[in-house]
């Protein structure tokens, strides 16, 4: 068998990449991307479409005279709400920050303990958590309702916050990343050097799995943000910005699209900020060893 000649550039082996594959993948990406983006584009132009262009048939995929009227309609209604809009905003901040932060802390702390501290019972506990990933909120919805009643949590912030802390998904994601990216030897070395478990968790493990918890942060925040209108909270004073927007955007089709854009923009901004950080860590951490 002939030994294949390796191409090396800057001390790195150049991987096998065919031109045809590159082109094929690019074409596929552009096609798929266009399919994914088209409805989003439609939503965006709907939000700036003036009333006069709404009745053109067939509808155009661009706007001739973009207008901010839909957003003005949306926000002028905000002043007419019974509870001041700042209150909704405050609720959203409290719930999203508390829920996301707690989910990150409890998820990663538990994941670290399960992954690197060899206490008896950890395997069984993780098995149980793995099985429970299959348990969606649909399945536990009925009995969770009774538990909320028993805890007297109906119509409080708690109902939107605490269940998120117990999210097994985040824990599972963190555990997988810690298992894959941090060797037991490294932790053992830190222990021998006298670092306590909390310190190892905070100063060694967390920085190394930054991509994992940033991903978790983005997805948890998005989930909490979208779940704003919980059916178990009925006081107007406790509802979120999200539910307020959903209510007032009913005034017109244009305002509804504008409302969708407003609601979408916050998680997208958070995502963009985090994405750049994720990329940074990836480039600089040298994840392994």
């Amino acid at each position, binding site marked *: 068998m002939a030994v294949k000649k*390796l191409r090396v550039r800057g001390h790195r082996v150049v*991987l*096998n990449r*065919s031109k045809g*594959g590159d082109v094929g*993948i690019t074409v596929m*990406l552009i096609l*798929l*991307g266009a399919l*994914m*983006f088209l409805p*989003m584009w*439609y939503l965006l132009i709907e939000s700036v479409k003036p009333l006069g262009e709404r009745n053109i*048939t*067939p*509808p155009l995929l661009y706007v001739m005279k973009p207008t901010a009227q839909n957003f003005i309609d949306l926000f002028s209604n905000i002043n007419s709400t019974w509870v001041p809009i700042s209150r909704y905003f405050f609720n959203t901040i409290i719930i999203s920050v508390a829920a996301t932060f707690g989910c990150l802390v*409890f*998820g990663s702390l*538990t994941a670290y*303990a*399960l992954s690197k501290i*060899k*206490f008896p019972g950890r395997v069984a506990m993780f098995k149980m958590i793995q099985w*429970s*990933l*299959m*348990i*969606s909120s*649909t*399945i*536990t*919805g*009925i*009995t969770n309702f*009774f*538990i909320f009643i028993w805890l007297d949590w109906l119509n409080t912030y708690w109902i939107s916050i*605490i269940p998120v*802390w*117990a999210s*097994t998904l985040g824990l599972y*994601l963190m555990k*997988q990343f810690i298992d894959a*990216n941090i060797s037991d030897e490294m932790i053992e070395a830190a222990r021998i*050097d006298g670092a*306590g*478990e909390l310190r190892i*968790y905070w100063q060694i493990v967390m920085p190394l799995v930054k*991509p994992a918890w940033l*991903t978790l942060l983005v997805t948890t925040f998005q989930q909490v943000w*979208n779940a704003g209108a919980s059916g178990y909270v009925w006081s107007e004073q406790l509802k979120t910005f999200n539910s307020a927007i*959903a209510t007032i955007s009913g005034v017109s*089709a244009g305002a*509804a699209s504008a*409302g*969708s854009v407003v609601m*979408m923009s916050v998680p997208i901004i958070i*995502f963009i900020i985090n*994405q*750049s950080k994720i990329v940074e860590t990836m480039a600089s951490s040298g*994840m392994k060893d």
Partner: protein
Amino acid sequence: MTKTKKDVKLQQPKNQKYAGKAMTKGRYIRSQMKRNWVGYVMVAPFLIMFIAFTVVPVVLSILLSFTSFNMLQVPEWKGLDNYVQLFLADDLFITAFSNTMLFAITTGPASFILAFIVAWFINELSPRLRAFVTLIFYAPSISGTAYLVWGIFFKGDIYGYVNGWLLKMGMISEPIVFFKDVNYIVPLCIVVAIWTSLGTTFLSNIAGLQGVDRSLYEAGAIDGVKNRWQEAWYITLPSMRSILLFGAVLAITGAFGFGAIVDNLCGNPSTDYVAWTLQHHLVEYMGTRFEYGYASAIAVVLFAIMMGANALVQKFLSKVGE
């Protein structure tokens, strides 16, 4: 950070206590528990919440599914009656069951495969470009309501985009009411579901792909991996197995929990119940009829199906890269 002899010696006194005695299994476990007590402290808060909001509800649900319960009276034990009624006397349940299976079999694998393929495609792009493309694919799932735009896109009158163009091209003579027409509801809902499904799975795939050790690829190139397809099969997929399992779990829960999209686009119930799923059936018995025992039985059936699907997928994924 290297272990010196001195460090190793310092470690020893901890174990010396047991040196003379024969180490029984029980004693070993007890010593491990004592040594690693911090572990229990660290998992305790989560464990308590997990038991309260997941374990207890599931156990209660299973118990309730054997009873008849309306919250006002004490639950009445009925044995397997609920299940017998579900499978033998409830036609709508059978509809819901087969619809759920149909949605799950189409949207689950499609979203799972798409989430991997796209993440893999963009893995070698420059960071900036990758971030941009990620945003395009992730944006649809980021907002809970963005998919309502499909309702405008496929609106049932001549002002809808699709109808407008079909009319103009002369392919139809009058507008199709897409989300009320039994021929279109199911396929359209499947498309919308796939469109919104590239969420967490996609992001974790990207992070996972970035975490694959590059030296493995280099070693692969030396060992005779010829092209990127072989590389993906023999190196990338096996090193990402845990992330793939995670994605599969998400795909399954997403696919079987299908329901909200139908409600918001087609109304509840959809025309002739063509898109009636187990989720709808459950909510109907819980929220409208207050038959908690019966609703619990539906939840248990849904849970059992998802467990089965998960076992199948795990079996399949363990074969990857062999």
